[in-house]
């Protein structure tokens, strides 16, 4: 085809399109309006492009908001990961949120995402789907041969893309709403179940406590009433009071132990030990009660069996189980104790010749006070919590416990514990991929530096799951003596780091010496007593933890620190996720590393928000009734939102030199921040807040001149807190204002510069101890 003739034909096509486009678009939008399926929406838009423009094919790529990975959406509704061609149109369009029109002049060698198509396209339009400032994905429309994209065609494709974006956003919002509704319902149910369980437990505990109390009260009063009576058996009464006091004390300590086990507040203190020896010693300790009841213990212990577990807890577990068997055995009966190994598990069976348990009750014997509901035998002592505690200990080790009926009668209690406490195979595979890449190892070290800067911490370490051994090792650190670290490892579930790795919950310890959860875990390295530990999650699996100790200022860490740290580490996790999703694209890690370094630099430049600012922002957000997730989000944004200013630090400190060109540049700092944080930040809510924190309520701010409710609430809060902090701290060229005067200034600007409601809430937050 001669270019001239083709050009003429296409010019004619433009005219035709101009006449028909409104009708075609209206038709497409009507179709989009009535569908909730992304695949159908995509098909409607694609068919419209085919009819109107003679396109040969189309594709939709959906953006995974957390990881930033692209997924190809097929008309069947199936999704598959798609890696865009490096430097190709998909990557460019995502990055710049601008369409790419490739008219085919580059010939067949130009990058046109070849993997998406059956035949290589001759021309390609790549349109980003953007709604509400957030990129949702890309629409690609391919043409068999090269063609020009005139202004009408471009506008047509962009409008079609916008309509598709709106439809996709709508389905996404609907899905999120549905999920939210479900999670609220689940939460409600969980709470009411929990309340019910705890009130039943309370009444059972109250009953169990009242029995010994009744005896103590009755015997004490009887003694008082018969003090002068020489026939009153005082010694016997006192010994009963004494033993009932012991029973009460046992009950109270069992209830406490159990609640700590169930709350996951008792980290394992793991050791490798010979199980045969532990069982033998334990059985010797039980001999007095065994002899009293003329019971024969028959241990069958596999020799030389070494397990990795918490020896104190395992001893307690076995005492409870064997003690239980002895109690329910008939006089002169036999109790069998078997230990052996089976695969990766250590098995233990304890069998008695007691009356047995009805089969329907077998699954319930590990419930608290199960005994209380059973026939009571006056000779059977105990709190009714022994088996519940055993169950808690087994759970904590990640093992199993169950009860069986023994032949001809009696009960067999069985325990299976993992011989070693290892990370899950998936976590180990992911850790291997992380540790195998130099750039990700660098990201680990960069993260440690960033966390140290952001948390103002002396000591930070990142522990990663060891792919070969399954425990945790220190992969990157700062402020620790490196040589001593080589051998320092911890098993999953052991200690502070191990329990965070096992349960995946962030942890704040205010004072490790008084915190009962960690008594005896205190390590000399902790010269101050406050520490934070958060999990590093990749693809839903905990692959490591980040430990933070010792605030340089000597203060303790608090919940606000924990929230900011959690947010930062979550972002590192999702960057690692993206890096794994795009193994051939080193830029993912490079950008993340750049962002991590920029956050680290903030501290050096004195631009990192201090705790006071984060406290004030979170307290104001709380005052305004934001959700916990919303509060965490603005708190996190508050800590990093001035990243873009690092580039203009000098200019800000010397405003005399500020010419209009420089000022314009500074006014772009929110965008610069976005540029810097891109490698770490895919949540559009975060980007929206960062971008808008210099907008004014009356529309006179920058960069977009938004006004009123169009400015995200988080950004309106940041504006107020930033202004207050700046006024009360002063600038090199301006002395600090007293608090009252600063508030007066905020009030004067309420309705102009600031949202009046936010100013009110801020003042309340400030008065309520939000600032320190």
């Amino acid at each position, binding site marked *: 085809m001669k270019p001239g003739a083709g050009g003429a034909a296409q010019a004619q096509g433009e005219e035709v399109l101009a006449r028909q486009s409104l009708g075609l678009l209206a038709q497409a939008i009507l179709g989009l309006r009535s569908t909730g399926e992304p695949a159908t929406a995509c098909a409607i838009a694609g068919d419209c492009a085919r009819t109107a423009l003679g396109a040969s094919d189309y594709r939709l790529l959906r953006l995974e908001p957390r990881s930033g990975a692209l997924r190809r959406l097929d008309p069947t509704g199936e999704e598959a990961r798609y890696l865009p061609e490096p430097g190709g149109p998909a990557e460019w369009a995502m990055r710049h949120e601008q369409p790419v029109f490739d008219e085919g002049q580059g010939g067949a060698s130009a990058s046109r995402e070849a993997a998406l198509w059956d035949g290589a396209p001759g021309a390609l339009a790549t349109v980003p789907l953007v709604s509400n400032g957030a990129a949702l994905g890309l629409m690609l429309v391919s043409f068999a041969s090269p063609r020009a994209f005139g202004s009408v065609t471009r506008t047509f494709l962009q409008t079609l893309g916008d309509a598709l974006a709106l439809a996709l956003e709508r389905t996404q919002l609907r899905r999120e709403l549905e999920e939210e509704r479900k999670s609220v319902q689940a939460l409600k149910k969980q709470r009411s179940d929990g309340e019910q369980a705890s009130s039943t437990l309370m009444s059972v505990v109250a009953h169990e406590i*009242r029995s010994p109390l009744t005896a103590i009260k009755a015997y004490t009063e*009887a003694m008082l009433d018969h003090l002068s009576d020489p026939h009153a058996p005082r010694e016997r009464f006192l010994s009963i009071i004494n033993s009932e006091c012991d029973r009460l004390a046992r009950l109270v300590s069992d209830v406490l132990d159990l609640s700590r086990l169930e709350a996951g507040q008792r980290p394992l203190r793991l050791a490798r030990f010979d199980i045969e020896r532990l069982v033998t010693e334990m059985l010797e300790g039980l001999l007095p009660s065994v002899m009293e009841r003329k019971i024969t213990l028959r241990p069958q212990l596999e020799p030389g069996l070494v397990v990795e577990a918490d020896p104190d807890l395992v001893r307690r577990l076995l005492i409870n189980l064997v003690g239980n068997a002895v109690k329910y055995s008939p006089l002169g009966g036999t109790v069998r104790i078997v230990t052996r190994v089976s695969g990766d598990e250590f098995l233990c069976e304890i069998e008695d010749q007691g009356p047995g348990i009805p089969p329907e009750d077998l699954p319930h014997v590990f419930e608290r006070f199960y005994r209380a509901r059973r026939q*009571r035998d006056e000779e059977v002592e105990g709190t009714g919590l022994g088996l519940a505690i055993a169950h808690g200990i087994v759970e904590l080790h990640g093992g199993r416990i169950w009860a069986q009926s023994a032949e001809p009668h009696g009960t067999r209690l069985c325990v299976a514990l993992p011989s070693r406490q290892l990370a899950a195979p998936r976590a180990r595979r992911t850790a291997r991929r992380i540790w195998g890449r130099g750039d990700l190892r660098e990201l680990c070290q960069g993260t440690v530096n960033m966390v140290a800067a952001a948390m103002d911490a002396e000591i930070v370490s990142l522990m990663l799951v060891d792919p070969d051994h399954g425990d945790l090792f220190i992969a990157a650190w700062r402020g620790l003596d490196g040589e001593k670290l080589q051998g320092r490892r911890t098993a999953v579930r052991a200690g502070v780091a191990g329990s965070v790795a096992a349960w995946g919950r962030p942890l704040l310890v205010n004072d490790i010496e008084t915190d009962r959860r960690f008594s005896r875990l205190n390590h000399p390295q902790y010269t101050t007593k406050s520490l934070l530990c958060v999990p590093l999650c990749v693809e839903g699996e905990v692959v490591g933890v980040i430990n933070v100790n010792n605030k340089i200022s000597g203060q303790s860490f608090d919940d606000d620190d924990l929230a900011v740290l959690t947010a930062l580490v979550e972002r590192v996790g999702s960057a690692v996720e993206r890096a794994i999703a795009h193994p051939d694209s080193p830029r993912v890690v490079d950008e993340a590393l750049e962002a991590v370094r920029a956050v680290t630099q903030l501290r050096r430049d004195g631009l990192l928000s201090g705790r006071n600012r984060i406290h004030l922002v979170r307290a104001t957000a709380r005052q305004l009734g934001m959700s916990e997730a919303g509060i965490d989000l603005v708190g996190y944004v508050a800590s990093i939102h001035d990243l873009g200013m690092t580039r203009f630090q000098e200019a800000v400190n010397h405003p005399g030199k500020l010419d209009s060109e420089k000022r314009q540049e500074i006014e772009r700092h929110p965008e610069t921040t976005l540029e810097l944080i891109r490698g770490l930040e895919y949540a559009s809510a975060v980007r929206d807040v960062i971008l808008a924190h210099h907008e004014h309520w009356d529309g006179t701010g920058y960069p977009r001149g938004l006004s009123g409710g169009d400015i995200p609430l988080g950004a309106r809060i940041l504006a107020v807190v930033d202004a207050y902090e700046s006024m009360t701290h002063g600038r090199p060229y301006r002395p600090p204002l007293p608090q009252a005067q600063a508030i007066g200034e905020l009030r004067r600007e309420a309705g102009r510069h600031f949202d009046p409601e936010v100013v009110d809430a801020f003042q309340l937050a400030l008065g309520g101890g939000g600032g320190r």
Partner: protein
Amino acid sequence: MAKGKILVVDDEIYIVHILDFSLGMEGYQVLTALDGEQALEKARAEHPDLIVLDIMMPKLDGYETCKMLKADEQTRSIPVILLSAKGRNVDQKIGFEVGADDYITKPFSPRKLVERINAILGQNSSQRLQA
């Protein structure tokens, strides 16, 4: 000469012992039972003047035992004092519904229990005199 015969029923052996002691010191003859079934047997065989009955017991609980005592011609007229760790109004109501004459919650004072027993038996004897 004993003041009267009291049957004490509780699955907690120490409680039975202390009531045995306190009531014995007061001049009562004390019979004991450790569960509801035993209590019914002894009530029918020994015709006590009053029964102190715990509620939370194995085999047959205090409510059931009380109901059966009050349904039986032989034992219907024997006053029953329920004794239990449950102290809520609901339980008291059930207690009176099954025909109990009085109700004492644990932990209790043995002295007060003795006073109640004296009161009930004194009242009953005067009623008997009137009749």
